[in-house]
């Protein structure tokens, strides 16, 4: 059995992973930022001003992304550091990178048999929304949207075969 088949045999198909991804996101926000997230509607428009990306390589290959507004990124840094949002400055990049890293790690640890065979990249954070992303992911994606302090954030996992 190859690694991809083994992954599917133990965890089902990626379409079934959405609840695990949602749980991974909720846990990180609850534990590290002290806030409960509500699910947002699929059509909720996300103001994409910050994009954080973490790569996954090994048994599970893909790219994990989190998109949010500058206001949300500032609030995340503020909650993590316990400082005023207007004082967060460049810590926003660091904060959303770390949040993405923890979500990606938390998610892969929830998939049976994956944690030992999947490495995370260091996070990359893009500022601005005027870009196109061309991922080599060819095995589908799962996406979920939450309301963080009233603003939608979008979390996506694109999967490579």
């Amino acid at each position, binding site marked *: 059995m190859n690694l991809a088949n083994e992954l599917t045999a133990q965890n089902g198909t990626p379409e079934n992973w959405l609840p695990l991804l949602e749980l991974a996101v909720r846990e990180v926000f609850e*534990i590290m930022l002290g806030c409960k997230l509500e699910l947002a509607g699929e059509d909720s428009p996300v103001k994409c001003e910050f994009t954080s990306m973490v790569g996954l390589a090994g048994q599970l290959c893909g790219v994990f992304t989190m998109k949010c507004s500058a206001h949300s990124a500032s609030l995340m840094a503020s909650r*993590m*550091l316990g400082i005023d949002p207007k004082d967060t400055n460049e*810590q926003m990049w*660091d904060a959303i990178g*770390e949040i993405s*890293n923890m979500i990606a*790690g938390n998610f892969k640890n929830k998939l049976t048999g994956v*944690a030992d065979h999947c490495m*995370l990249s260091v996070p990359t954070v893009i500022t601005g929304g005027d870009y196109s992303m061309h991922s080599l992911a060819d095995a589908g994606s799962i996406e979920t949207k939450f309301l963080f302090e009233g603003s939608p954030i979008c979390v996506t996992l694109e999967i490579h075969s």
Partner: protein
Amino acid sequence: MSKVRALIVDDSSVMRKIVERSLRQAGIDLAEVKEASNGAEALGVLNETQVDLILCDINMPVMDGLEFLGQMKGLPNAQNVPVVMITTEGSESHVVQALSVGARGYIRKPFTPEQVKEHVVPLLDANK
């Protein structure tokens, strides 16, 4: 518990602040907190300063946490300092690897101050 000199090693400055805050929330009386953004920097800090506790990430640029653990055991003033790994790499193999090169504890991110207390306080008590 006497005042503790801690070294926090993580490539994220935000995470270093959170770890420091968690130590304080865990009731640990910090005399001094040194920071390093990778293992090589941390070795530099240990060459100049004596600490009582090290909290260290695994995935970092320049020198990762596991290599740092291996190298710090060669420093006479640091070889008995307890090291707790704090990382997103929560796999069993990472835990085993970290413990086998000398880590005394392992905390997975995301973490609560209670988890920090649970792992760190017994180590400090044992080293009194």
